């Protein structure tokens, strides 16, 4: 009994004080941490590959007019999986190490928009080469003009 308690006491005492000084001293993540995804507007070609693979469906493609495509990222529901950065053919998206994302101003702070000049790329379905047959563009739900509910012959009306 006593030896057991002593062993436990040693177990507690040996490591000493371990508490980190955070937030007064930074404690940055090691390795390739998947933090806030940043989009480089200059590199983006507007292919929509990121919107296709995003599991949280947080990236929406809007075609405003013939020449402008808007990429709206609702990072409030981003799950930081990094798939968008993986598939981006131009490496326009990078997963930064930023994780101190708290805000008191509402979730609008987490919205990121980017307007891309498209010219002819609208009819180019080949800018984006998916890494596997399972990632190809066939999902209509991520384009705001093709949002539809259920099947084509679903009895439920759109809300």
């Amino acid at each position, binding site marked *: 009994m006593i030896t057991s308690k002593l062993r436990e006491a040693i177990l507690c005492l040996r490591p000493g004080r371990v508490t980190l000084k955070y*937030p007064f001293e930074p404690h940055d993540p090691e390795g390739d941490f998947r933090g806030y995804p940043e989009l480089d507007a200059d590199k983006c070609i507007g292919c929509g590959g990121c919107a296709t693979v995003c599991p949280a469906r947080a990236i929406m493609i809007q075609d405003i007019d013939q020449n402008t495509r808007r990429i709206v990222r609702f990072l409030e529901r981003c799950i930081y999986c990094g798939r968008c950065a993986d598939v981006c053919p131009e490496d326009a998206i990078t997963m930064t190490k930023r994780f101190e994302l*708290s805000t008191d101003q509402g979730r609008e702070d987490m919205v990121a928009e980017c307007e891309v000049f498209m010219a002819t790329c609208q*009819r180019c379905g080949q800018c984006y080469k998916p890494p596997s047959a399972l990632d190809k563009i066939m999902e209509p739900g991520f384009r705001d003009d093709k949002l539809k509910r259920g099947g084509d012959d679903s009895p439920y009306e759109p809300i």
Partner: protein
Amino acid sequence: MFKKLCEKAFPKSLWVYHCNVGDCNGCDIEVIDVLTPYYDAERFGIKLVASPRHADVLLVCGPVTRQVVPALKRLYDAVPDPKIVIAIGSCAVGGGIWFDSYNIVGGVDTILPVDYYIPGCPPRPEAILYGVAMALGLTEKQIESVHLKQLLDRPESVPMESEAR
């Protein structure tokens, strides 16, 4: 105004009540992690309490499921005024990966007024500490909404006609 009131009302010690409204447990575990030796939130006088009636702060994790809505409303009413609501995790902030599921109402702010948002899936314990420290006025907000535009006259942003289909 509300923020100033909060700063006056909570100068020293925040007692927090943690509730799960449909969460996967990831954020819950990280909230407990914040109390363990490496992060030790009790340095700031933050204490996890067992009853909402003792709490100053409501930590909400998870997307709000349809079944949990009445319970969450009653829970909020049970916390005495003035109170702070902190939404932890991408689910609580914006509904997360299931935002449009039939049984999910959405982020916590569709039901309750939320004062602080801590995104992340799950947020690191450091990120939770940072958010709570922000409520205590110790740290600053770092993010804001982003609006980017490609310049229309940039020649290199025009794709080559020959590459198109």
